[in-house]
């Protein structure tokens, strides 16, 4: 009997406390009935080995106890497809961000390209593990809150993407989202790149216009991130997508115009370098930036017009 007591004790440890006494009493009765039945047939008491075999046949204590719990899984089959889809999106974005930041650190670092990149890459496993754990935790909670049952009832077939929609590949979308996130992290000072603006012989300082436009630029990139996420995950929300695209393009053009008006975007301060040489570098840098601003403005204008055209055309087609 001592073996049966030990077995039931092991089962009890994994049972819900409120029902443990009741369940153990019922299991004890079943086991005792079984032992008595067997003993009656054999005409003698069971040996220790025979009792042990009987308990083994009854099942592992952990398995027996787990069946009395309502939830026997972390994420059920109804939630699993959503879990897998979100996990893929999150991990692809994380990998893209880590790669991007690592590459930028390697490029702007102290010259040890391979070393800097390899070191940054070693962080990827931790980032992937932490994010996978967070996604799993969120979905385990959603499983218990009945998300799948609710979502499967409330989904709208009209939200499915059009067959003709040119959807970007998942990696292209992930990289776009990662770029925006990486920029926001750098802009808000969460991550730092090596100080490539200070080479020892000269120091580069950005124009005060960038500090003045800190919030507009932050909002612009954040809205662009929302646009990219919608484009990736909810391509059928065309109106919102079109408005965000046109809005960010117009906002971007205004910001570019303000930046352009500053006239000078980088100041080169010589540190052990001839002042004339520093002035030449400053002049070429500012010329390059002037051309870059104009090119970006032209590209954004074309993008904005294209997006508006697509929006008008798709609304016309819907109305037809």
């Amino acid at each position, binding site marked *: 009997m001592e073996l049966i007591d030990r077995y039931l004790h092991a089962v009890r440890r994994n049972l819900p406390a409120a029902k443990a006494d009741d369940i153990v009493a019922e299991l004890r*009765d079943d086991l005792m009935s079984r032992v008595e039945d067997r003993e009656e047939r054999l005409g003698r008491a069971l040996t220790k080995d025979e009792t042990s075999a009987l308990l083994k046949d009854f099942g592992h204590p952990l398995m027996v106890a787990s*069946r009395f719990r309502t939830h026997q899984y972390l994420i059920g089959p109804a939630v699993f497809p959503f879990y897998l889809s979100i996990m893929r999106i999150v991990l692809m974005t994380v990998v893209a961000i880590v790669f991007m930041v690592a590459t930028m650190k390697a490029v702007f670092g102290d010259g040890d390209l391979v070393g800097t990149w390899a070191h940054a890459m070693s962080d990827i496993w931790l980032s992937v593990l932490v994010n996978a754990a967070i996604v799993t935790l969120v979905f385990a909670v959603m499983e218990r809150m009945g998300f799948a049952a609710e979502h499967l009832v409330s989904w709208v077939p009209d939200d499915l993407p059009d067959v003709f929609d040119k959807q970007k590949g998942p990696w292209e979308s992930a990289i776009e989202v990662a770029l925006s996130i990486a920029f926001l992290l750098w802009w808000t000072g969460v991550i730092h790149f090596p100080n490539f603006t200070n080479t020892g012989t000269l120091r580069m300082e950005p124009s005060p216009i960038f500090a003045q436009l800190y919030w507009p630029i932050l909002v612009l990139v954040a809205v662009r991130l929302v646009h990219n996420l919608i484009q990736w995950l909810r391509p059928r929300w065309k109106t919102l997508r079109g408005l965000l695209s046109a809005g960010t393009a117009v906002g971007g053009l205004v910001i570019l115009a303000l930046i352009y008006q500053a006239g000078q975007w980088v100041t080169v301060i010589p540190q052990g370098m001839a002042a004339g040489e520093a002035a030449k570098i400053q002049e070429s840098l500012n010329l390059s930036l002037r051309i870059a601003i104009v090119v970006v403005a032209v590209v954004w204008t074309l993008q904005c017009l294209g997006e508006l055209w697509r929006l008008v055309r798709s609304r016309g087609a819907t109305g037809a």
Partner: protein
Amino acid sequence: MPVEEDLFEKMRIELRRGSLVLAVLGALREERYGYTLRQSLEDAGLPIDEGALYPLLRRLETQGLLTSEWREEARRNKRFYRLSPEGEETLAQLLAEWNSISESIVRLNEGTK
């Protein structure tokens, strides 16, 4: 082939699992406790894993299909289960469904003979 046997075994278990609720409800038209219920199912050719039986009984009781009470019998306290009025109604509906499924399957397979 072992793979095919394994597949058949999995499908057989799946098929029987669905019908066990019906068997348990049917057997509990008469009052029984866990051990005798399991024996009667086994005698009827439907053996059930004891690890599955007691959680199933509790679930059916929570759903209001069974009632239970602790009583002493043969010098030991035992929990007796019986079909509730709601359980009888559900059993009748499930049996009708079972017969309908069975007839459909027979009809579908007759066509292939």
